């Protein structure tokens, strides 16, 4: 008798059915079942933001949301942020040469996308406050701020 559950959800615009133990975080289903590895594991407890995706349009921690709670929900990952990898934030991230090791950057970009959805032209203070949950150990914070400002300017 399996404890696993079947869950239907929409990921990057496509309807998917997955089977996993009910308490499995969405993160591991995305990465290892659906092979969407751009969403990264950093802490597992909602402390670093490396796993940030959009759930029903809002930035959220893929590591904190159990798959059993994902029935019928809509998920967007870094792979689905734009059709061609050329979202204004991604262009700005390249222009400002933000990434170093790069591991946290999917989560940073997905969080920043949430900010720009809510606030087209955020003040610097708003950027700092909004981005506070996401850790970058390489210390790219100054460039993240600049890239968000650039994306908001250049759209």
């Amino acid at each position, binding site marked *: 008798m399996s404890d696993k559950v079947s869950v239907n959800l929409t990921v990057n615009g496509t309807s998917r059915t997955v089977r996993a133990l009910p308490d499995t975080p969405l993160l591991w289903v995305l990465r290892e079942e659906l092979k969407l590895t751009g969403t990264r594991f950093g*802490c597992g407890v909602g*402390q670093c933001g490396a796993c940030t995706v959009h759930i029903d349009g809002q930035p959220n921690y893929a590591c904190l949301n159990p798959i059993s709670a994902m029935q019928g929900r809509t998920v967007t990952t870094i792979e689905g942020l734009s059709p061609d990898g050329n979202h204004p934030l991604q262009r700005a991230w390249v222009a400002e040469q933000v990434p170093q*090791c790069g*591991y*946290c950057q999917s989560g940073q970009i997905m969080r920043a996308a949430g900010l720009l959805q809510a606030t087209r032209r955020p003040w610097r203070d708003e950027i700092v406050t909004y981005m506070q949950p996401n850790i970058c150990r390489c210390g790219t914070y100054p460039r993240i701020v600049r890239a968000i400002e650039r994306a908001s300017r250049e759209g």
Partner: protein
Amino acid sequence: MHDAQRRRFMTGTAGLTFGIAASGFGAGGALLAADGALAQPQPQPTAGSARPRVMNPWVTLSTDGTVTIMSPAAEMGQGSLTSVPLILADEMDAEWSRVRIMHAPPDDAIYGNPRIGGVMYTAGSVAVTGYFTMMRQFGAQVRAVLVDNAATRWGVPAGELTTQPGRVLHAASGRSLSYGEIAGFAVLPERAPQIALEPLDRARFRLIGRDVGRIDVPGKVRGAPVYSTDVQLPGMVYGAILREPVEGAGPTVIDERAARAIEGVIDVVRLRYGVGVIADAPWAAFKAKQALRVEWSSKATGWGFSNEKGLAAFAAIANDDSQQGVAWETEGNVRAALQKAASTFEREYRADYAYHAQMEPLNSVASVSPKGDACEIWCGTQSQTFAVAAVANALGIPASRVKLNDMMVGGGFGRRGNRDTEFIVDSVLMSRAAGRPVKVTWTREDDVKNGRFRPLYVNRLRAGLDSRGRITAWHHKVVSDRVLPFMDPVRAKASKGRDNIAMRGTEIPSYNIPDRLAEGLHPDTGIRTSALRAIGVGQNCFANECFIDEIAGERRLDPVAYRVALLDREPRAQRIVREAAAMAGWARRGTLEKQGRALGVAYIDYTGSHLAMVAEVSVERASGNVKVHRIWCTIDCGVAVQPDNVVAQTEGSIVYGLGLALTERITVADGRVEQSNFFDYRVPRMADMPEIIVRVIPTLNHPTGAGQMATPLVAPAIANALASLTGVRLRQQPMLAERVKVALAEVAPVA
């Protein structure tokens, strides 16, 4: 490759013979185009009728003009994947948009870094500095061969030809050939041509000194699968490992019933250093790991140890003059000089353990053959050499039976450069047990609890001063946990007790102090230690630069002027300090202090790179919270190969230093690590950011390091500013708010 062949390979000026296919070409990781597009990781970089010609072990030139260059260094965020091949491309006069970069396969004889023992090991910020001349030589040789072939075809002297990126030109006749066209007919000489490299000249550089953009950036902003943790293999299962809480305390009794009851668990594997579980999904593996009940051996050095006990023991050694350490740097006769000094000055500084906190938790993927006689691994490692050797050793097979897939590193900071690469051996042992490919992932808690830390330190400094207050004698005694013997027993054996990871930074070559001694004692506490960004320099520079400031303060001398005077033999250093002070507006210190802010300065000569920093700081007395408002930093690392990346690395190393200075502390109780995740190991976040202003001062000196050089300056610059502001001297890293609060309370101004 056989040894005879290897030696042949390495004959010639720069060890180059043409016409031999690079060993393992096509092994290694992703192929990246200069425009950042992720190409298919295939040996043939070109399509259709294009034909690749292997020009030398570093360069393959295709008839369609594509140039594939090997990258020997790990890419862990520092940008070497771009900057090292770019040096070759510059000298070859390659067209950057046609360049593809491949991770070089493990082969020390060809790709080893001469600055780090000739092995493939990315550490110490020596990738650019170590490979620079070699890259220029190989690039110049390829260019010469292309020019010679064009000259032969046209029947003109090679001296009449010039190159433009990707083309050979004959101005007299107006003819030109692309590199790709020449590749189609080029005859490669048996031996590499001897090229006398031109002196470094900014006007000759086409790529060096001009920001081309990092080759790995476009993939990284799209979430491309570039790390080992992203690897997916058919039939792959997942491993997790419960490690011994104290090094050497292996499992004695294992109760695995609850673990095996979890759906998806395939097996439980007893290891020397812990217990592994194998499952059909990572989550099942993590749950099973947590469900294990294990008793550990009581026979391990670390049991009973704590930070407090360690610091007390280290301080006792530091203050006992009868206990002399192994000399790290000796100049003149420090004991005699201290005897005859007009006055002496003495202080003690300390540091707690610190953790790397690289964002990608340790992991690896391995596929061991059914007979256990061959293995393929996917890993992010700082040393391809160590990784292959550790895997071969774990399986008892020759290194030639290990295939390494060198992935990008989601943060290294020294954690992925230990000789035993235990996080790679994990997946190898699990794959052997499972009989199929296994991905082993450490959770963040595993990564913290089984961290290998910057050691605990007690630094005792003693200076002798002449009657004018100038330092004439400098005695630095360091007591710390041993690092090198734990992280790299091979190097430790050859080091004669000189623990370079613990001691680096106690040498102060730029300060004009005639009599100096730096000595180290490094007890084995049983605690796991490692190189951590800036290694010993991080604490030893804190001690040095606070100490100089304390002496200047005692004499009521300006700390900038005092340093500049001590740097009178080193004009590069003086310039760096003066520029940082000017940028920060050092002269407005008095005005600032009336507003409750102060400036603090620090300087370093870090392996030949000169840096100075000024921090603008305030403190909230009630909480002890230190606020860093602005940091100015100047860096002279010689030729700045990619200037914007030098800025980025300096910004990043400042942020790293900020955490080490203020909030990051690992504590050990009864040998066990007390912290477990980012809620109790606090690294800098965006709101902690000061405004950071970096100025690169390029010179035409041979390039020196840029990857971590600013990290050690942050803590002393902050401590010096705090002392200036409050009169209170913080002498222990990290300067936690509670420590600052207590220190301020002890000298609270009367209201």
